[in-house]
């Protein structure tokens, strides 16, 4: 089993004719994702890499039955692309684009309130249900079908964790990169809730970073709602305070959001914390039902 995306997902690619869009769309198709349409305003009616291209999301979804979208458009127009997808009524919008202005995302959040679409990202690697559907830029080959849900704020660090799992024979139900920006569509808690209700997920790996309070909220949620084992890791234990480390999220200031505080709270809330990034796979193997280590 899996959450949010599977073999029935019908994907529309926004920005399909761009360089990034083309490359990653082909990777997704090769993995087995059903890509039913692309959208590039002004190129409607053409066919790009055997994919029908439309001028608008509304038209693309109506004519092809698209129910999810992925966004590869530049940051200046990405917020509008998200709202266009939501307006077209897709269930899921995955925004890969990095560098969207914060005030634009605040308006997007407001626009989405009360509507049925879920947003993943922006500034994220995307989502994959191994063996079924890949929407994003993650390398498909490192994944393997299984019962561990993965939620992470970063990209390559998620790949690292997934590889540690797969190389131990531990497969994943779904892996979600929620993104490193200040305003994102799906939080740790949102993703935890989905995994909680998924009978195909037996354990969860949560990879956080310094800065903000999202990991704290996740820890409290795990404590009060989850009986499945949750493995945690926090990147940035050695980061100096007050500095922004690449992600807008990864900044610690005024004693808030330090790695130590997050790790302590996670442990208090019953998460199994891997102190070293090299121990994420092993820690998961230890807590996974039916695994012996």
């Amino acid at each position: 089993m899996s959450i949010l995306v599977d073999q029935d997902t019908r994907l529309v690619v926004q920005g399909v004719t761009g360089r990034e869009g083309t490359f990653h769309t082909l990777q997704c198709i090769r993995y087995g994702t059903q890509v039913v349409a692309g959208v590039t305003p002004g190129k409607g009616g053409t066919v790009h890499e055997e994919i029908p291209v439309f001028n608008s999301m509304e038209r693309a979804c109506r004519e092809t039955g698209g129910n999810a979208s992925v966004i590869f458009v530049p940051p200046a127009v990405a917020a509008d692309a998200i709202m266009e997808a939501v307006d077209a009524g897709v269930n899921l919008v995955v925004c890969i684009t990095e560098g969207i202005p914060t005030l634009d995302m605040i308006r997007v959040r407001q626009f989405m309130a009360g509507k049925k679409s879920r947003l993943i990202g922006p500034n994220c690697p995307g989502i994959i249900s191994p063996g079924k559907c890949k929407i994003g830029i993650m390398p498909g080959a490192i994944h393997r079908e299984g019962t561990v849900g993965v939620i992470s704020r970063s990209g390559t660090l998620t790949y690292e964790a997934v590889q540690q799992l797969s190389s131990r024979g531990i497969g994943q139900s779904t892996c979600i990169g929620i993104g490193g920006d200040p305003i994102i569509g799906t939080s740790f808690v949102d993703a935890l809730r989905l995994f909680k209700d998924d009978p195909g997920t037996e354990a969860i790996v949560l990879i956080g970073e310094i800065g903000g309070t999202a990991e704290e909220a996740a820890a409290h949620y795990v404590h009060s709602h989850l009986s499945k084992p949750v493995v945690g890791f926090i990147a940035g234990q050695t980061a100096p305070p007050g500095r922004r480390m690449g992600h807008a999220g990864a900044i610690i200031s005024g004693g808030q959001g330090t790695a130590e505080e997050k790790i302590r709270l996670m442990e208090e809330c019953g998460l199994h914390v891997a102190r070293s990034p090299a121990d994420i796979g092993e820690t998961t193997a230890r807590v996974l039902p039916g695994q012996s280590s």
Partner: protein
Amino acid sequence: MKIHEYQAKEILRDHGVPVPRGKVADTGEKAREIAGELGGLVVIKAQIHAGGRGKGGGVRLARSPEEAQEVAESILGMQLVTHQTGPEGQTVKRVLVEEGLKIQREYYLGIAIDRDAGKVVFMASREGGVEIERVAAENPELILKEALEPGLGLTPFQARKLAFGLDLPAKLAPAAVRFMLSLYRAFEATDASLAEINPLLLTEDGDLYALDAKINFDDNALYRHPGIRALRDTDEEDPLEVEAGKHGLNYIKLDGNVGCMVNGAGLAMATMDIIKLAGGSPANFLDVGGGATAEQVRNAFGIILTDPNVKAVLINIFGGIMRCDIVARGVVDAARSMQLEVPIVVRLEGTNLEQGREILKASGLSLTVASGMQDAAEKVVRLASRSTT
């Protein structure tokens, strides 16, 4: 992006926020002229990005134009040390010369992004002039907050709630409301990520002024604000970090001896962590971004090795879709062209891994190939400590 106080005040003035009369000077002579124009008591304020300038001797009064020149000359060129600059301090290149105002009371106003709520929040407090973080920790009830609806921004009724909540004299409320609405307009119009007026001054004459002003901007939105981008002062930033930024590298210097070159911010932080756990100390954070091309790797080496403390370098690249043989060739080409003297440990992951390792081994360079993060960290820490002794 950060800017200086005098720049922030110019932006505020343009949006109708009352600020004290004043101008910026880069010489004592100029400071004297400005003080003469202003007349009476003036305040000379060092312009550096770091806070805590007053305690470090960067804010002083002058009673005459001649004294203004004298004071300005003593501040200009000084290495101002505050709790935010680090022990080496920051060179003062400009001073703001402002009219002196008589203080009746000091308040605090701030606008920030509440990530969890996904909204802009307007804050106000009677406890102005002190560190607001301390107020927030000790007396959070003294900070009034209004969450703003996107599209509406600060509404007049919210501004009134805050103004009356501050216990301002009733007849001042309209002025306070105008002040707050103007401040919010400045915030929104410039895509700011933070705006703070600390203190908001109530003078003995019953007027409100932004006595100090701090505005930070959303880097992602600078593309639509060329005028604000032009206010960037790279003298206030670490020269190596500025250089790295030109190449699209995200670099932060630290004080250890193991240089790090990693793709992705999260993995880069995790790499620093595992170096520490292996008993070493990272010399830097460096995210080479998605495409670790030969040119990017060469640029990254150039930045990392400018730091004389670096005794060994760990390259940790999780290629993902990127092929390892291409990354390996990039590392070898860069290492060859630069005649590197420090030992290099390379950990690659991704497709064509074996070919990548072969290229590294066959290069004849002193590259140590590692498998996995643990192995890589142990190897690089050992090499770094060996070359230190």
